[in-house]
């Protein structure tokens, strides 16, 4: 993480206790300006609790939150002018049209009357709901409501977006659209914190990642840093059209590989995995070598998902 960038969000020993459950435990979160921060954790890991505390909607049991240099607990209303917050579960009012929905929040943020109308149209355009302007908000599909809610977070042009599982409950196509939207917003220079329990969804687009488990931040940093941590534990996966002994025979020859383990066996093929600490060039060379040696390779890939493995690894450690 580039420490020279100003921090938009900083928490110190942020803790939230619900009766006996410790939802968030001594969390020290640092989000630099302009980051697209992926906040990842399993369901119930404390993501929503953390985001609500960041948004000034929940009082921490102990610890402090600074947003843009201000204590959230002390100036909740100023903070609300700076951030756009989208909860994971939210509802819409009865008897309300799409434009009225945005009009309501625009009024709440005291958007000037003249500006309100054009702003609403712009935002509806941005989230692809321009044709639903006069529809009843309750009649919208889940994905549309999700996008409408995202639009409402932008109504006062906040510099910081707190999006709690914005893609949950969306179909794959809508997820991709949502991802594109987030990238677009990030490109506009906004700092975005987006939470999810699905890591790959975020790993690709986020500049920073924080992994939370049982209320504790178990890993955090820029995506590159986290990837680097993974270099040592990269896995290569090979499927050979032969039986296990022969397969092991083939792969043993290559340099820079650890002990191979058999992961799957079918009547005609064997799948092996082995630790590998070289770069992509080294991997290509190994493959070329094997092919010249006549190995019947049906598949050659990086084993598993690196980030997901890390995720599992980290959370497993915590569970142990």
């Amino acid at each position, binding site marked *: 993480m580039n420490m020279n960038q100003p921090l938009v969000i900083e928490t110190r020993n942020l803790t939230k206790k619900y009766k006996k459950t410790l939802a968030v435990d001594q969390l020290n979160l640092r989000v630099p300006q302009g980051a697209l921060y992926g906040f990842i954790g399993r369901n119930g890991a404390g993501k929503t609790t953390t985001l609500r505390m960041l948004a000034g*909607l*929940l009082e921490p049991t102990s610890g402090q939150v600074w947003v843009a240099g201000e204590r959230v607990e002390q100036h909740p*209303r*100023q903070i609300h002018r700076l951030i756009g917050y989208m*909860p994971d579960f939210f509802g819409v*009012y009865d*008897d*309300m049209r799409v434009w009225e929905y945005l009009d309501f929040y625009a009024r*709440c*943020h005291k958007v000037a009357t003249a500006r309100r109308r054009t702003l609403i149209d712009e935002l509806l355009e941005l989230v692809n709901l321009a044709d639903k302007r006069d529809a009843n908000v309750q009649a919208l599909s889940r994905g549309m409501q999700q996008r409408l809610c995202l639009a409402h977070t932008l109504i006062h042009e906040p510099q910081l977006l707190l999006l709690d599982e914005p893609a949950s409950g969306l179909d794959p196509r809508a997820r991709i659209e949502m991802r594109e939207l987030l990238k677009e917003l990030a490109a506009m220079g906004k700092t975005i914190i987006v939470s999810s329990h699905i890591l790959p969804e975020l790993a690709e687009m986020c500049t920073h990642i924080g992994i939370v488990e049982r209320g504790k931040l178990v890993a955090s940093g820029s995506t590159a840093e986290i990837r680097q941590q993974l270099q040592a534990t990269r896995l290569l996966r090979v499927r050979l059209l032969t039986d296990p002994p022969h397969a092991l025979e083939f792969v043993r020859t290559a340099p820079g590989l650890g002990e191979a383990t058999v992961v799957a066996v079918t009547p005609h093929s064997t799948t092996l995995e082995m630790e590998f600490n070289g770069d992509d060039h080294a991997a290509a060379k190994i493959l070329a070598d094997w092919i010249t040696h006549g190995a019947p390779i049906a598949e050659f890939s990086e084993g598993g998902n690196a980030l997901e493995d890390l995720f599992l690894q980290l959370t497993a450690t915590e569970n142990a």
Partner: protein
Amino acid sequence: MKIALSSPSLNPVLVKELRGRMRGPRAYLFLTGVLVLLGLVSFGLFQLVTPRYGTFNQPNVAAGAMIGQFVFVGLVFLTIVMVCVIAPSLTATAISGEHQRKTFDLLMATPLAPFTILTGKLGAALSYVALILLAALPMMSLAYVFGGVTLSDLVRAFLVMGGFALTYAVIGLFFSALFRRTGIAVGASFVLVAFCLFGTLFVYLVLSVMRGEQPPNWVLALNPFSVLSSALVDGVVTDPNNVFGSSSVTPLLWGLAGGRFDNSQTQQLALWYYALGIYGWLTVFLFALTTQLIKPVQRFRFRPLTWVLLVLLFVGPIVAALFLYTAFGFGGVRAAWRWATTSQQNIVLNSKFTDAWEQNWRVDQVIQKASAPSGSPLAQPISTTDKDGKHALHVWNSDADTAQAFAISQPLQFGLPDGGTVRVRVTMRLGQHRAPACGKQGDTCPLMVKLQYTDASGARREWSQGFYASGEAKAKLGLPPRCQTCPSCKTCPGSKPHIRVTEAKWYTFESQDLFQNNSQQTMPKSLDQLVLKVAGTQYEAQIAEASVIVHEGRPLFEDNKKNRRIDWSLSSLTPWWIWSFINGGRDDIKGGRMWIRQGGIREVVPLLVEPLPPIPQPTAALPPPSAQ
């Protein structure tokens, strides 16, 4: 893109709520239903009551008035029930609905203040209630056509209904924020409203059976029917004994308002004054509490102890107000307010004669005997002197054969509606005089200070105090120690002995509160005139100051009205042994008063006014008299 954070626009919550509420046929269908119900009920009431009072065919003004009142009261009662049910049910869903729809976080993430959110919700609910009330108005003016109902009745009824709508709406809002679940919030509001509507009546009935007499009317202070009745009946019925004669519904209203039927002339505060205080305070208190309740990041945590403290905080002022009212009445509280907000002032103009004394003081020659015929010029004119650094009025008579008396007076015309303390300060120097003490009748003191006033019963009274320098006022000399003949002193309850001052020395008399021991009836309502009576043969009197120092009003806990059955003042409620302890074992003096314990009720006995020691000569010279 730049957003202008300006434009003081409408409350966004109000706009949203109104848009949602009035959309679709629901609101109009409901309103129609209300109107149909009101129409049917008023028709039913009309049908019910007409056979008793006659029909339109035989026009009868009195009958028309009774029908009008009956229909009006019926409609108003129905409307107030609707208002009391609809208002809280509209607001009980306001905050809990946001929680249940999961829109609360979205709302709280906006920079709207809790106050704005609540006023928006409240405004939307109340405007709907106002719509219902407005819709009911024509129906009630139908009753107005029959007569028997005045515009003032209509206005009062609507004020009371509007007040209840506000209070119950705030109660609904409070429960909504407290329970966060619509069902519980609505249920709790309805239970409370049902208690106010019927529970209080039940309590009143149970109490009256148990006590065998009518309970005090404030038991009904929370009941909307009673408050409405009291508002309608207040001022209409001035004579409780004649209540049955006036109309068919008046006894009902009178009874509901907790009015007395037992011929006792007990003056009771009309119920709606209580209701105004209690509900007004409840509304403000709950609204403030609700703004705290909906804050996501709260200033204080709501623990069980917090609730206990809040209840105390709420009940405390009500108890205090009731205590103040019971103990002192409105007059007492008003007097205490006046006491606290005013300070002592001298109401005598030119009291030190520094300006030309003729401007403010009038002289009447009362007696002139012997050598000079009546009506002739003053034997000795009154002048001013400067003596021992004091500027003084100088009156003397060097003629041993001529008796003369002057009344030097100043009209005061100072009203004391709330009572007050009145002290007199006179600085004098009396020379030798021929008649010993104050003469045989005791009325020819060289100087006699009189304060004439009108008391609460309208009688003119006078306080007086005589001063002399020569001679002894001893019984063996046959001289009265106090005035025997002046009419004033016969009416003065505690006629004061004359005060002997040292001859040819300056002396300042400063009285205590002149009326501290007066009953309510004899307390002055206005101070009329201050008179300095100078009289005798061969005398000399110099007066450097004549002041009347008034502090308007009455402090709450110095209250010592004798005619009160129980003295509620803190000092009198304090057990005597505490005073005894404080005063070192003596049943002693507190603030110039002696407290004597007599069979549980303490009488307040004044200390005699003792002359104060002469004050030393002032160091600074008084300003010279203005040249006139």
